[in-house]
């Protein structure tokens, strides 16, 4: 394992701080294996629920000048299929590789149920997607905006997860992100993933004069949200002791470093795959290594959280 980049997170050690974010190339074992091979320290599955979901019609993923809009609508093959894929990935990639399972539920109880089934596949982490903005019309506003919901879901999932650690994935759209992070901490979360997509937002085609996304609105990711994600990570790391997977808009080694300096333990990359393709993981690892050698830094923890005053 790369001595420079190796990153310990919740008792395990990964070869890189980079994590594939949920929803990108996370449907099948072979797809995630390819991302691990490219240099990701860990991969997060697409969020899955109890039953298969088709999600929204297309266009569901839409690039714009500042990033991406997406309204995939949590399409997923359901927990049974995903448990198989995670197991297959574990077999292919070995015990040392990082596999994070992202779960969601339509009710508080469903979060617990999916988690109980997901732990059968022995992921390293259960990531709890309380914050997807794409399903709000169906479920009301995301659970992640409400402190009571987050509190309750955290407790339920923690119990269901047994000895597998859990990370709550937060959105910036809540009254106070610091308070939300503390609620996660107090209720048993082992980590926090920040942030999910922002908004949602909308784009209109001026030819047909209609919203372009089939779901009309979609969450914003990519470069547009990098400063928002960085600030969220900075705030959470400054106000809780939980390790954070800093996610949002990262496309370069410099941005990954900013996340780490803001306090992130691991750095999530989703939309970055659109901008730099799968090799982005290889590139960022290489640049991080060069930077560390140049600055004579032996481990990234030397600079983790260093921007916080």
């Amino acid at each position: 394992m790369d001595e420079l980049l190796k990153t310990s997170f919740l008792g395990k050690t990964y070869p890189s701080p980079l994590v594939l974010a949920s929803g990108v190339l996370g449907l099948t074992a072979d797809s995630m294996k390819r991302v691990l091979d490219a240099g990701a320290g860990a991969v997060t599955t697409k969020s899955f629920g109890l039953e298969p979901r088709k999600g929204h019609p297309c266009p569901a993923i839409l690039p714009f000048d500042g990033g991406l809009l997406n309204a995939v609508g949590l399409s997923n093959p359901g927990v049974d299929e995903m448990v198989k894929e995670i197991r297959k990935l574990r077999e292919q990639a070995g015990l040392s590789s990082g596999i994070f399972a992202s779960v969601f539920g339509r009710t508080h109880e469903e979060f617990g149920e999916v988690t109980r089934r997901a732990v059968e596949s022995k992921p390293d982490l259960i990531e709890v997607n309380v914050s997807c903005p794409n399903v709000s019309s169906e479920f009301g506003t995301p659970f992640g905006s409400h402190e009571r919901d987050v509190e309750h879901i955290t407790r339920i999932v923690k119990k269901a997860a047994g000895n597998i650690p859990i990370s709550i994935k937060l959105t910036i759209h809540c009254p106070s992100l610091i308070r939300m992070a503390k609620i996660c901490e107090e209720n048993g979360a082992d980590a926090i993933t920040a942030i999910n997509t922002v908004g949602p937002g909308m784009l209109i085609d001026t030819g047909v004069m209609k919203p372009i996304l089939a779901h009309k609105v979609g969450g914003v990711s990519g470069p547009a949200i990098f400063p928002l994600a960085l600030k969220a990570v900075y705030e959470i790391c400054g106000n809780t002791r939980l390790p954070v997977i800093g996610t949002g808009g990262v496309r370069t080694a410099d941005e990954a470093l900013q996340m780490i300096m803001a306090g992130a333990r691991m750095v999530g990359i989703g939309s970055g795959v659109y901008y730099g393709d799968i090799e982005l993981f290889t590139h960022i690892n290489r640049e991080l290594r060069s930077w560390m050698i140049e600055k004579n830094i032996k481990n990234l923890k030397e600079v983790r959280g260093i921007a916080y005053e």
Partner: protein
Amino acid sequence: MSDQMKTYPVLNIKSHSPVMKSFYFSQPESDIQPGRFFNVWLPGVDEKPFSVSDVFQGIMEITVKAVGPFSRKMMDVRRGDLVGLRGPFGKGFSHHQHALLVGGGMGIVPLRYLTRLLRQQGFYFEVLLGGRCSQDIPFQTDFSEWAPTTFVTDDGSLGYKGAVTDYMQDKIRESHLSFVYSSGPEAMLVKVMDLAAQVGLDYEISFERYMKCGIGICGQCVVDGSGIRLCKEGPVLTRQEAEKVSEWGMPHRDATGRRNTR
């Protein structure tokens, strides 16, 4: 950027059969190789992937067969209607001498445009096309005019009766054909790969999977055994790539990501 949505008026429409039409647009991007595809958006309906059947004098053609809700709606599109086009996506065919083009059903579409380009380069090539019936095979005249073409239909309504792959073996034994291009139903493609491998021929084959994003991030079109994304590294794969894939002939994953029949 061509990944962003833009709508284009339909300049013209041509009916091939009651269930198959070509639509013409002014060419949205320059870098369109045969085998690459566009995501076609019908506002209020859906967005689906379609190959380019031709680019000629600044006009791009796509050809659609009505098989389900989206493609049936396409049959109602009128001249002047605005249709969204994003692309070209994916990797297309490269250019090889002395090739046999083997197409089945709507897989014929990308071969049509390939034919134009191979001809432009002055390459020798032959064509073998199959379908259920004559109506299933578009661009018959073009193919026949442009290259030695053999037609095969299930019902014998055009050319030989049978399956294209029945006639492929003879063709590729002819020493002057040294490369295979193919596109069509997967059962046919699996046979084509087998036959080509038997005589040690190199090939490029275009595959189809359920696609959502077209830009390589949703993971919907990844094929097992390789992690290859058909929307990005495909839809056209080289022999080397295609042989890595372990799922040819298996049921495809649907919109949920599940294999249909499990």
